[in-house]
């Protein structure tokens, strides 16, 4: 019956039309004006964010309180934002880019879109976690792991290598999220360490074996409820699920690939200032804040994000295996590259 509204013509109700039109017109003209009003001083900073939105929300609120600088946040999936910055080029309104994985920063660095990070900021973090060129600073580290359902897989049956998951024995027993920003660096790492052909064969095997999800949250939740036996995720997704469900609600555990297997890749979440930033000073202040003691402590203790803080002396969440006990593959930031090959490989394998 609702659908017939327009056919009926009761007594005139012009006020409604008039009110709607007038308020609408006012809104049409007012909104864009407000958007343009952002001044080009250093009281604001525009953050393009590929990290988890809720965690960044905490950081931004704290930063605003400490400095009085207003942060405008544009959030999205990390590779999307990186490609957006590349498309926008020098006309981008962005001051700072904060992302989950280093290859996205490498891409922008290659294109010459990043400004050098202040030396004092770089010095807060061990040098191996920063850009070799000094164009971006490492903020957090995350480990790639295999989450497994404890009722479905015995510890002894877990694979020694990530590449084993492409073998027929694992058909239907693997969950992956190929369009999640965190999967691309893993593909890049396999390609860099084992070669393109091995990487493609591995992905083709996964295409046969794996159930695909949109994001790591979906993978780890599926593993925990037993919909799939194992899942390739970053460590903190499991930690977050444990935080939500409590120990009693966990039917899964985390398996760390050891002995330098590519599956145990440790990725750097970093940040950079844009070369064409409209607010360069505020941008550098935000970078300095990200590696400062209070920000790193905030990130280490919040229940929202479970990543390793890179500033020495700030302890990671006890839910995580200590960073120095991991045995990640021997691959440097420059060898990992910019993920340029990852998406084409995924498409070739039919995963994207």
């Amino acid at each position, binding site marked *: *019956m609702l*659908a017939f509204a327009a056919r009926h013509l009761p007594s005139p*109700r012009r006020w409604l039309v008039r009110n*709607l039109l007038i308020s609408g017109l006012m809104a049409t003209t007012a909104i864009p004006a407000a958007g343009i009003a952002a001044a080009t001083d250093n009281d604001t900073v525009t953050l393009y964010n590929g990290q988890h939105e*809720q965690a960044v929300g905490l950081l931004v609120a704290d930063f605003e309180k400490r400095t009085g600088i207003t942060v405008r946040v544009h*959030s999205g999936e990390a590779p999307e934002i990186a490609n957006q910055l590349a*498309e926008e080029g020098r006309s981008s309104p962005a001051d700072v880019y904060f992302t989950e994985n280093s290859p996205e920063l490498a891409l922008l660095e290659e294109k010459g879109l990043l400004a050098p990070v202040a030396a004092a900021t770089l010095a807060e973090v061990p040098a191996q976690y920063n850009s070799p060129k000094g164009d971006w600073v490492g903020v957090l580290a995350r480990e790639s792991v295999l989450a497994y359902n404890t009722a479905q897989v015995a510890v002894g049956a877990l694979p020694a290598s990530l590449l084993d998951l492409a073998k027929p024995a694992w058909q239907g027993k693997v969950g992956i999220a190929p*369009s999640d920003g965190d999967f691309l660096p893993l593909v890049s790492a396999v390609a860099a360490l084992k070669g393109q052909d091995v990487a493609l064969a591995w992905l083709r095997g996964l295409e046969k074996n794996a159930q695909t999800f949109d994001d790591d949250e979906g993978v780890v939740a599926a593993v925990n409820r037993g919909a799939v036996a194992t899942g390739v995720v970053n460590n903190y997704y499991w930690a977050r699920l444990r935080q939500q469900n409590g120990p009693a609600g966990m039917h899964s555990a985390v398996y760390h690939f050891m002995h330098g297997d590519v599956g145990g890749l440790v990725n750097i979440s970093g940040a950079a200032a844009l070369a064409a930033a409209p607010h360069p000073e505020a941008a550098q202040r935000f970078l300095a804040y990200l590696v400062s003691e209070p920000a790193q402590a905030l990130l280490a203790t919040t229940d*929202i994000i479970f990543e390793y803080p890179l500033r020495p002396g700030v302890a990671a969440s006890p839910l995580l295996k200590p960073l120095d006990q991991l045995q990640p593959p021997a691959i440097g930031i420059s060898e990992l590259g910019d993920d340029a090959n990852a*998406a084409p490989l995924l498409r070739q394998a039919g995963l994207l």
Partner: protein
Amino acid sequence: MTIGVPVGPARRLGAPRFAAWRVASRRRRTAAGSRPPPFPLLAAAAIVALLGLLPIGVTLSRAMQVDVAAAGALLFRPLVGRLLFNTLALVAAGTLTAAVVGTAAAWFVERTRLPGRRIWASLAAVPLAIPSFVTSFAWVSLSPAFQGFPGALLVVTCAYYPLLYLPVAAALRGLDPALEETARSLGCGPWQRFTRVVLPHLRPALFGGMVLVALNVLVEFGAFALLRYRTFTTEIYAEYRTGFAGPQAALLAVVLMMLCVAFLAIESVARGHVRYARVARGTGRVATRYPLGRARLPVLLGFVVLVVVTLGVPLGMILFWLTQPGAAAITPAEVSAGILISSTLSSLEYGAAGASLTMILAFPIAFLAVRYDGPVVAAIERAAWLVQGVPGIVVALALVALTVHTLHPLYQSSLLLVIAYAILFLPLALVSIKASLQQAERRLEDVGRSLGLGWAAVTRRIVLPVAGPGLAAAAAMVFVAVVTDLTTTLLLAPIGTHTLATRVWVDTSTLAFAAAAPFAALMATISLLSTGLLAHRFGGTNRLRNDLTPGARR
């Protein structure tokens, strides 16, 4: 007096995007003069039509940047086949279940002595006012088991069966009881009368409704993304997430647009052919209602289940999560009063701005279509019709790709988002504006003019009072559509802008259901209130009955 012709019933409120739509309909045009349309009007309408076609042009040109070999490799890969299968399987299953549920509900409400008919009739239409991604938020937060095809089918059926219920109910009300009486006198039993007389007459309404469901399923994004069911729209979004507005996304978008246009074409062809008319001159009557007898309880139970599933679960789950502490979410994101108010305000502002611009842009085309004829007018109408075949995600991607380099001042501006809404909901507004303008007949204006009123006075004193309520209803419908829009807002919202829809999205996609609940509740409230107000003011059941009862119309 026509009986079976779809009476433009599927004018939607809320989530789905498509409305019943006829191009250059062969209806008798009231005093459609042979005068050519005034040039300014024609120019305005043509500009709007071109604006509407802009996303199609941009998408095609972006897709063309991929060289042929690469395009072949991209299009003819297993994934595209799987997406095609996923999408079409859901389209087929969803239209069928919606048709069965919608027809059954309509028949029991209209043709039986069902207790509480009026209440069921109202409740059956309400799901249209609940955005489908809120429905899927509810189901997926109830249990992750609803992910995948079964969940997607359930959500599609819940969200869109009113698109079948409404036209079928209208067709049943308009059906001449004499036909069934004749069949009965010729020895047909009740089931035979239904299958051989009633059902064939419902065919136009059924078919039109099913195509609307199919189109809505094709362009739906949020609901399927939350249910982790991969269709073309979710895959275009995945491409966007890994590569921004690249040519790969444009290629997939072209395939999706072709699917949409194919369904639009099927619909318009079908509408052109099926027509049932009552030719007798006698007074029409309202059909007798069948007693339900022993079936009364099971049927009532069926309606209770229907309402619980389509309304109870979505609204109930929102209420449930509202009472949960934020810590029940994986990410206990802060939900402060300030964030709630600012998101609500920006939803309302964009709703108002979107509705205004859409009305302003749609008006010239609607006026032209109602008052004038000719090949140019037909071409403009056809262009506006084609805009329906462009899903929101494609419109948004095209506008991003266009403004990131050229037209840069518009990039990331709120004006661009409002323009996107106007393009997206142009067809929706056109349907209603045309209907209300048809009521304001040319003759009335002529009378006014002959009595010495000027152009402005005629508009103010005759056209607006007659067409005004219908126009307001059209604006309100676009308003609700904008407030509940997810895809376009997600891609085009200016930096720092969050609407209720994007808040629900951010929290639900990270499984933070408790954090999403207040935003979902506010959005559902706005949508239900606006829709309820609209129905109350402009479409009472009695009025409806009068209008559709044979013989009651002029």
